[in-house]
C-alpha cells in the first residue's frame, strides 16, 4: 500500500434534531487502499452514514466534519460542488440497498446506464450504447439487448440490483461504496450478485467499501473489516482473523446467530456494555 486512495480521519456526522443533537458517527478514522473493506454494525451504528458522508450524501439536517477526508489527494470537504459532482458517479460510485428505489421508474434500464455514462465521459450515443450493453453482459444478464429496453418494474429484484451495479460501474470508478447491496434479495440470488460484484471488483482493480449488518457475509467477502458500534469503530481486523476477534461486541455478534452447524440454546445474547460507546 503506497498511498491510500481514501483517507478518513475523525469523521463525525451530527444531526440537529428538536430533541437535541444526535451524533450518528463519532470520530471514525480509516485508510483505504486497493482493497475490499467491510463496515459492519447493527442498525444505528452509523455504518451507512459513514458511507454516505464520504460521498457527501448526508441527508439535510446532518452536518459532516472531519479532520481529514481526502480521495486520491482531493479534499472532499472543501471541494467545489462541481468537483464533487464529477467525482460522484464518476470515480466514486454507490450501490444502495433496494434497486426499486434507486432506479428511475420511468426510464428504461439501458437509457439510465447510457445517461450515467455520458454524464461523466465524452462519448457518442452509439459508443455509450455499446458500453452499456457490454456492462449488462458483464453483470451476467442473459439477454443484454432485451434487458436494455426494459423498465425497472419489469425486472426481478436480483436483475434490478445487477442493473444498478452495471450502471454504477460503467464509468470505471476507482471506489465503489456498496450499502447493503444484497439484503433486499433472496439468499440464492444474493450469492449470485455478490459473485458478480466480486469478479468485477477484482477485474477492474477497484476499491470497495461494503457496508452491511451481516458480519458473516462481510468477513467472507472482504479483506478487512471495521466493526462499528454507536458511531465508533470498536474493532478493526483482517477478515481471515475474524475468529480471533478481541472485542466483546464483535464476538457477541458472531455468536448470537443461529447456525446450521451448531445447535446452541438458548442462543448467547449480547450484553451491551455502556463502555463500548465511550
Amino acid at each position, binding site marked *: 500500500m503506497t498511498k491510500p486512495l481514501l483517507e478518513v480521519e475523525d469523521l463525525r456526522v451530527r444531526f440537529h434534531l428538536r430533541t437535541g443533537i444526535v451524533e450518528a458517527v463519532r470520530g471514525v478514522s480509516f485508510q483505504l487502499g486497493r482493497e475490499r473493506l467491510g463496515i459492519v454494525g447493527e442498525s444505528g451504528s452509523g455504518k451507512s452514514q459513514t458511507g454516505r458522508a464520504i460521498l457527501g450524501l448526508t441527508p439535510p439536517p446532518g452536518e459532516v466534519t472531519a479532520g481529514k477526508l481526502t480521495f486520491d489527494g482531493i479534499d472532499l470537504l472543501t471541494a467545489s460542488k462541481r468537483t464533487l459532482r464529477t467525482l460522484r458517479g464518476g470515480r466514486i460510485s454507490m450501490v444502495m440497498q433496494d434497486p426499486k428505489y434507486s432506479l428511475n421508474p420511468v426510464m428504461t434500464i439501458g437509457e439510465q446506464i447510457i445517461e450515467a455514462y455520458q454524464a461523466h465521459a465524452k462519448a457518442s450515443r452509439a459508443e455509450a450504447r455499446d458500453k452499456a450493453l457490454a456492462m449488462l453482459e458483464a453483470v451476467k444478464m442473459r439477454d443484454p439487448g432485451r434487458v436494455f429496453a426494459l423498465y425497472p418494474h419489469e425486472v426481478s429484484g436480483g436483475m434490478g440490483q445487477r442493473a444498478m451495479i452495471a450502471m454504477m460501474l460503467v464509468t470505471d470508478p476507482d471506489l465503489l461504496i456498496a450499502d447493503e447491496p444484497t439484503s433486499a434479495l433472496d439468499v*440464492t440470488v444474493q450469492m449470485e450478485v455478490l459473485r458478480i460484484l466480486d469478479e468485477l471488483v477484482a477485474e477492474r482493480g477497484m476499491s470497495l467499501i461494503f457496508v452491511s449488518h451481516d458480519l458473516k457475509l462481510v468477513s467472507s467477502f472482504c479483506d478487512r473489516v471495521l466493526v462499528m458500534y454507536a458511531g465508533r469503530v470498536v474493532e478493526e481486523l483482517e477478515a481471515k482473523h475474524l475468529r480471533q476477534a478481541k472485542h466483546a461486541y464483535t464476538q457477541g455478534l458472531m455468536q448470537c446467530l443461529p447456525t446450521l452447524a451448531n445447535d446452541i440454546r438458548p442462543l448467547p445474547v449480547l450484553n451491551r456494555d455502556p463502555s463500548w460507546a465511550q
Partner: protein
Amino acid sequence: MLDIQNLQVVFGTGRLRVDAVKNVSFQVERGASYGLVGESGSGKSTVLRAICGLAPISDGRVSVEGKEVTTPRDQAFYRTVQMVFQDPYASLHPRHTVDRTLSEPLAIHGEKDAEARIVQALREVGLGPSFRFRYPHQLSGGQRQRIAIARALILRPKVLLLDEPTSALDASVQAEVLNLLDELRQKMGLTYILVSHDLAVVAHLCERLLVMRHGEGVEETTAAALRSGKASDSYTRSLIQASSGFSRDGQKTSPALAV
C-alpha cells in the same frame, strides 16, 4: 392440532390469475413447531395467511383441533390461533399506546381483569410495567416485536403463526426474540408455525419443516437432517449452501440461481 390438506390459494381470475399456493399439505402435532422455508414468492407467507383467514382458501382443507375452519373465522378460532407479523414497525398501530394495543383483544373478547393481564403479558415477554404507556415510536424494533408477541399471547391461544418474526431485527435482537419464543413455547405448550427465509432460524426453532418453492412444497424434512446436511432435493441443498455465507470457491452457478 393443525391439519392442512391440499391447500390451494388463488388470487385474481383470468389473465391476472396468480396461483400463490398450489397443493400444499402438512400436519402439525400439538406442542410441535413446524417451519415453512422458501424465498420470496414461494407462497410460504400465503399459507400462513390462508390459515388465519387473511387470504382465501381456494381449495383444500384447513382443520384446527380436528375441526375444519369456517369462512369467516369464528371468535373461537381467534382465541385458538394468533399471529405475529414480520415487520414490528408496521404491525403496531402508530397512535395507540402499548396499553391500548394489549387491551384491545381483551375488550373484543369481553375478558375481565384487563389491568392484571396486561402487566402479566408484558412480564411474560420480558418487559417491565414501565413500557405500558409508551407509543410505538418510543420503542426499539426488538421491544416492538415483544409487544406484538404479547398481543398475540394475551388471549392464551394454542397456536402461534410466526411470519418472519425476526427478519426485520438486528442479529443480537434476533437472538433475544428467538430465545423468548423458545422459552414461551415450553412454558405455555404452544404450537408454532414459523415462516422464514433463513434456514438457520427455522432449524433453530422447529423440529420439522417444509421447503417451498413457487407455491409448492419441495421437500419435507427435519431440522436434524438439515444440520447433518442430508437433503434429497437440489434446491434445498442450494439453500443450505447459500446460508453458509459467501465463498470464492465453487464458482459454478447452480441451476437454482437462474433468474
